[in-house]
């Protein structure tokens, strides 16, 4: 496989490192110095030049490449270069566009704009990943599937759960819940009439859906006081997602003009003007009483400092945005609950886009004895009944442009993925069946 990466910044370099063993890499950047740095630890052919010029793309032999990934700091360059590459015969093109207003949906991921196979919004994808971290506070696991655009959460019903309290008559399951594990046995939700204490439910859906469902299932955890530090792209988007559902308390931003802008754009959020690395300010605003804090400024140093101070003040769950690879390890040493970084998030989506077999991803949940599996459907549309699923497996959802719940007769069109939960004991059956299918060509 031949991959052209445009832009040798943090994201480009991280992609290069993660792809270099499976792909022949060509790295293009207009800054020769950046390429010298990148070459230190990436085995790639480097080309100096502006990738929006056809001459430069031709030199990279774009017509023979399988994938072009444009990840320069400029949205315009990325879009032009990806569209140009598509017209010059690259099989697949991916562009990073950070401006959320470019997108028609709020997923941070769109297909087919200007012929570009995937346009990614790093700040949006990062926000979504932070939502997953927040959901993780109230769940056993939250597994990202379909490039992180769909989450599968597992949650053990406690005494406060409204489902358990509605005993006596048949439980009205929320739509997002697709399966239940009771006593180690996995069952589709339709076969379970009554919810019981200790049931583990599997919730599958868009990140916000999952997060909201989890909050509804755990009313006893009380009100939610999430504080966001940093009103940049990521902070503003998180606030916009969380505010309508009352899941956010305050947003702290350092620049006063930006604060005014945010105050105009956002409702139901208290905007505070102040420095998140200033201990006196954080004390005065009683940040220590928040349930969770997200440090999402553009500066790694500020995020680290804010996270440490928040821990010091007694915030139980602290999450931070990390821009530079390698810093994530430092955070976990210092007791920060979780970190999210743009380069890893983008790399995960790119890896997900790469042509692979029918089995796109699998995540074992060992304590529950099940495995979450993502399946790609082949060239022809298929029905769920046609999938080579082992007995006991439950299809949680079908993920494509949207997320649909699945029944046996549901059709899956090409390009859609089936999210399936399989008992761990039977996973090998599925893997062998899929491998046989891959050899015959086509998907599941």
């Amino acid at each position, binding site marked *: 496989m*031949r991959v052209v990466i445009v832009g040798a910044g943090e994201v480009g370099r991280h992609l290069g490192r993660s792809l*270099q*063993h499976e792909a*022949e*890499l*060509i790295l293009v950047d207009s800054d*020769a110095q950046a390429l010298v740095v990148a*070459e*230190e*630890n*990436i*085995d*790639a*052919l*480097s080309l100096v030049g502006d990738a929006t010029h056809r001459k430069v793309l031709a030199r990279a032999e774009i017509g023979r490449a399988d994938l072009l990934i444009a990840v320069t700091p400029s949205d315009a360059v990325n879009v032009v270069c990806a569209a140009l590459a598509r017209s010059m015969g690259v099989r697949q093109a991916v562009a990073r566009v950070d401006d959320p207003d470019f997108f028609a949906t709020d997923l941070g991921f769109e297909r087919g704009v200007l012929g570009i196979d995937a346009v990614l919004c790093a700040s949006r994808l990062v926000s979504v990943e932070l939502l997953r971290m927040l959901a993780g506070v109230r769940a056993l696991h939250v597994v990202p599937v379909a490039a992180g655009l769909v989450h599968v959460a597992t949650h053990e019903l406690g005494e406060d759960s409204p489902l358990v309290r509605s005993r006596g008559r048949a439980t009205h399951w929320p739509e997002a819940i697709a399966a239940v594990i009771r006593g180690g046995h996995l069952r589709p939700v339709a076969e379970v009439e009554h919810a019981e204490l200790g049931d583990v439910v599997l919730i599958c859906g868009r990140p916000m859906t999952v997060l909201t469902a989890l909050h509804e299932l755990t009313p006893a955890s009380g009100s939610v006081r999430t504080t966001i530090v940093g009103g940049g792209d990521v902070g503003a988007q998180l606030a916009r997602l969380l505010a309508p559902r009352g899941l956010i308390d305050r947003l702290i931003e350092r620049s006063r003009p930006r604060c005014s802008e945010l105050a105009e754009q956002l409702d139901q959020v208290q905007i505070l003007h102040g420095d998140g690395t200033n201990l006196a300010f954080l004390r005065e605003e009683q940040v220590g009483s928040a349930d969770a804090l997200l440090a999402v400024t553009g500066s790694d140093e500020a995020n680290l400092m804010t996270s440490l101070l928040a821990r010091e003040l007694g915030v139980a769950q602290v999450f931070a945005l990390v821009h530079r690879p390698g810093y994530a390890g430092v955070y976990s040493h210092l007791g920060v609950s979780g970190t999210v970084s743009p380069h890893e998030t983008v790399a995960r989506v790119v890896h997900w886009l790469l042509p692979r077999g029918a089995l796109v991803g699998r995540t074992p949940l060992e304590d529950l004895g099940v495995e979450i599996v993502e399946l790609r459907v082949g060239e022809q549309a298929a029905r769920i009944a046609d999938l080579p699923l082992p007995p006991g497996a439950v299809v949680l959802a079908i993920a494509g442009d949207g997320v649909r719940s699945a029944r046996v007769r549901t059709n899956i069109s090409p390009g859609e993925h089936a999210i399936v939960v399989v008992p761990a004991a039977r996973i090998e059956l599925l893997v062998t069946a899929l491998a046989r299918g891959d050899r015959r060509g086509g998907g599941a």
Partner: protein
Amino acid sequence: MNPRAVARLAAPLLALVVVTLLAPVGLALHDGDALGVFAYGVATAGCGLLAALLRWFGRGTDDSIHRKDAIGVVVLVWLAMSIFGALPFVLDGSVPTFAAAIFEAASGFTTSGGSVIPNVEALTRASNLWRCEMHLIGGMGIVVLFVAVFPQLGVGAKQLFKVEVPGPSSEGLRPRIKQTALALWWIYGALMLLCTLLYWLGGMPIFDAVCHAMSTLGTGGFSTKAASIGHYQSAFIDWVTIAFMFVAGCNFGLYYMALRGRWRDLTSNPELRFYLAVNLAVTLLIAWAIWDRHPDVGESLRYASFQTLAVTSTTGYMTEDFDAYPDICRFVLFLCMFMGGCAGSTAGGLKAVRVLLLLKAIARELRAATSPNVVESIKLGRAAIPAQVTSAVLVFFAVYLAIFALGSLVLVALGLDLISATSGTIACLSSVGPGLGSIGPSRNFADVPALGQLVLSACMIAGRLEVFVLLSVFTRDLWRR
């Protein structure tokens, strides 16, 4: 530098040297040459033992390799190669001292071609094969071979590759460094086969043809005959040699581009044009100067171009003793020894591209003196050359001259005459081989004192590894952990 990481990577490289040493062992066995089997067997075993020791020492280190480690590996391997390559010559008694043997091996691996053996025709076939095989390996480089044949080394390979490949910038031909190395060796091997075939058709015995082809493509200069290529007195062989010396002195990356259909790269390359122009000018000058020896256009051009290319491609073959030419020729050839061939070739020297950049820098400074407000950048073809590349070239030139001065100083102090000392030093530094005077083409380095031979060996390795790599061993920075 992390000694364990160096040892871990140097071990398989030396194992590759062991493999190459098996060829003369095999030939000695085939010829029933007991002494040869012993001499090359001991060298093989010794090298193998060192490789095993390094492997043991470097066990358990991780895969990461930094630039400092890469320099350490390449220098260590080149030194070890010179020592184990020298061992057989001492053991089979073909050279009197170990210093002389080191000189012979260093001359082989750096593709210089200067020899301490007065009569190569008295050597065994195994020794002659080994001398030329050293040229073959040293020409493209042991590290490049290692990267080509060894499975996945990834980024570490790239670090190593950059240290060994000559030229101001080593650009890749293919996305993966392993593919680049493989492509270079394929081209190199194919050219060698073609050269062997032509030599054989020209009437050389097959063994001589193989040896000479390895020597020509590596731009070495060792021959199985005392009179070098002049032994055959064949115009066909001379012209074949001239052609392949030129081919070996050009950037191999261009051949790859040409094979991929980008012929224009070959014809429009500024370095290649410059190199060709210099060769043509020097050839014409010498042809004119030796007219009274060869009063025939074809003959005169044949001898003139042969000696010219023997020097500019740093091969060091001869069909005639150019030391007996008029002084103008001797001096021009002496100057040509500084330049050498193109970057990315198997030739040594400053490299044509550096000389071209120097000339352009001089021209720019001259223009700046008269019109100080003009802003211009140095260009090669249509590509502007960044200022730091130009200044790196200037520093390289200064260091080259400094080494030349120091080496000459040592040789003069040891009692050599001025012409022999200066020409001998530059002939070794640029890996040409024969110099002028008492170490001219018809003589050899046997009479140079042992210390002088060692200094010249160091010059050869320094020149082959582009000066800075070897010199950086003497900086404290490299040894810091």
